[in-house]
């Protein structure tokens, strides 16, 4: 999810190519060391973010300790900014000063340098997503050797032991999100119809699991016929894939695409083919596609996570760990099924910001 957010939140080609290569690598890492990966069981047994609460007494105790935190991120995007904002505001409520925020730009060498720089400040809490478990492991180890509590986003670090080396991992419920996308598809097709699938054809843990969960959930809908499945590696490919798919199978009534910015290409193809009747279902929130949804065109629904809450949950786990509380290995943050009726609330839930003006105007029309 983190990756797909990064993939579609930036138009810069270099950034996107870095994101794609990052995706490949994360997956390779997760496959090379299967014990590391967060699987269905760890999600099933995970704690829920809404359970992570601190009492006023605990908050007062935190405030008296004059704690500091560092946020060592993997890259920059609107999604990361929302995670960062959630963490910063939560720390602020606890009287914890954020002394450093870094962006590794998907470069493990930069993340290692960032960790070294941050360690000089001796933060009490470090929130981070590791760009590459192999290369950054030693620097994380050095950073926590001074006693810092490490809370991870999405990716485990090879050889790190829960409770001993890190507090916990905060992530999305990728399996639940895939299932929710399937439910949206059933709603869009009113339980029966012809479906095309445009899936992420790269080995990336999160998108693969979401796509897989989507397919699994659709098995219960016997009247929905998957007429064609096509994979994509780059987002720029989805427009051509969708156009070819529709030309070959004009009877298609809905298309599932792995994430929002990849869906932009699909919607563009549907517009140029003048097929407003074909509904699109995807993951994540993007202004362009939400405008399409708001104006009753192709996008029927999307499943969105809550990046602000991810950051806030990470901050809470780090603070709770300082007070001696033990977190579950994995904590999941909820997601929202989004259709035209709840765009505004879902956006606010995800980003804790008002809806962009353009979208508000489109919804009012």
């Amino acid at each position: 999810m983190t990756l797909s957010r990064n993939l579609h939140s930036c138009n810069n080609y270099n950034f996107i190519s870095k994101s794609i290569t990052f995706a490949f690598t994360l997956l390779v890492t997760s496959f090379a060391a299967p014990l590391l990966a967060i699987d269905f069981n760890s999600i099933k047994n995970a704690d829920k973010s809404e359970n992570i609460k601190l009492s006023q007494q605990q908050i007062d105790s935190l405030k008296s300790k004059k704690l500091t935190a560092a946020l060592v991120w993997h890259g920059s995007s609107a999604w990361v900014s929302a995670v960062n904002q959630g963490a910063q505001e939560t720390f602020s409520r606890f009287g914890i000063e954020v002394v450093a925020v870094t962006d590794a730009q998907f470069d493990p060498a930069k993340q290692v340098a960032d960790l070294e720089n941050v360690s000089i400040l001796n933060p009490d809490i470090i929130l981070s997503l590791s760009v590459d478990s192999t290369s950054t492991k030693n620097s994380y180890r050095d950073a926590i050797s001074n006693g810092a509590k490490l809370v991870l986003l999405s990716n485990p670090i090879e050889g790190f032991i829960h409770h001993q080396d890190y507090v916990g991992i905060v992530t999305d419920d990728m399996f639940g999100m895939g299932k929710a996308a399937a439910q949206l598809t059933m709603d869009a097709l009113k339980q029966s119809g012809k479906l095309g699938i445009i899936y992420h054809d790269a080995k990336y843990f999160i998108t693969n699991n979401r796509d897989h969960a989507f397919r699994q959930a659709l098995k219960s809908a016997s009247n929905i016929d998957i007429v064609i499945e096509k994979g994509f590696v780059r987002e720029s490919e989805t427009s051509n894939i969708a156009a070819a798919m529709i030309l070959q199978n004009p009877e298609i009534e809905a298309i599932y695409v792995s994430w929002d910015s990849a869906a932009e290409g699909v919607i563009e193809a549907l517009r140029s083919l003048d097929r407003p009747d074909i509904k699109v279902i995807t993951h994540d929130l993007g202004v362009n596609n939400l405008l399409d949804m708001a104006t009753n065109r192709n996008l029927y629904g999307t499943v969105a996570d809550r990046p602000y809450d991810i950051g806030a949950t990470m901050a809470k786990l780090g603070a709770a760990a300082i007070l001696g509380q033990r977190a579950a290995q994995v904590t999941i943050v909820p997601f929202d099924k989004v259709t035209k009726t709840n765009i505004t609330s879902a956006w606010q839930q995800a980003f804790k910001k008002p809806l962009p003006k353009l979208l508000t105007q489109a919804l009012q029309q």
Partner: protein
Amino acid sequence: MNAQMLSLNQLKQIALHREAFIYYIFFFVLFFFAIVLHDTAFLTLSNFMNIVKQTAPLTIMAVGLTFALAVGHIDLSIGSVVALSALVGALLLQHTGIPLAVLGALLVGVTVGLINGLLIERLQVSSLLITLGTMGIITGIARQITNLESVPIINQDFTFFFGSGKVLGLPILLLWTLIIGGCAYIILKKLAAGRHLLAVGGNPVAARAMGIKVTRIRLYALIASSTAAALAGLLYAGRLHGARYTLGEADLLTVIAAVAIGGTSLFGGRACIVGAILGTWLMGIINNGLILSGFSTNEQMIARGVILVIAVAIGVKEIRNG
């Protein structure tokens, strides 16, 4: 005539002072952060050692690139050579000892430099275009040979010699910087080869007339550039305990900026090794100082640009006043 001679002398003085430019910038930035971050650990030895360790691969790349620029060539392939040499070294380490792994990695650099040089000289094409092409080829090979997978290094001797080791209490990465920088300084300042390099970069026609083998010198310079990048790849691999195809990817512009700020001309004929080293350290100090300042990442980017522009402006003013 006298007036003309005077202005020529003045120009010469300014040119001589051009090498002092980096010192003004370097100490201005250091002074700036020392004041702003007086209540943090910025001014500690361990922090400066961190900066030196972080910038060691960049410094070696900058020293190598100085040779290519000295003869009037730009080498855009150095970032990709870093990745490929690190991967080759890490892969060889899984089957052989350190000497062969290091040799293999350095051979990557020598080969790429040779190919770059031969293509540029034989085809008489811009070094920018040729090295842009080879950069793509090498990046593709680096991605292909490992299927995008990181290659871990568990050989502790290797990580000691090329990464985390200390000799006489000094980080080994600092020693690598000093050794390579020292050798390059001697070549450029004390040996005939250095004078030939600058002569070729300054005026190739005159250099040829003086009997200097221009093509060969340019070839050597490009090999030096690539081989230094290959060594930088080994230093990255040693420091990170592994290699990855993205290593060096983001370093090219930083290295070019550091070398240019350090007083080396991007068009040949003028080279400053000390400036190149100080230039990369300057980049490291700015990066470190901004992180310790607690800025957000966006603010860090803006501040980095502002500091560089102000530092360059002050440096230029000081030189003119001098």
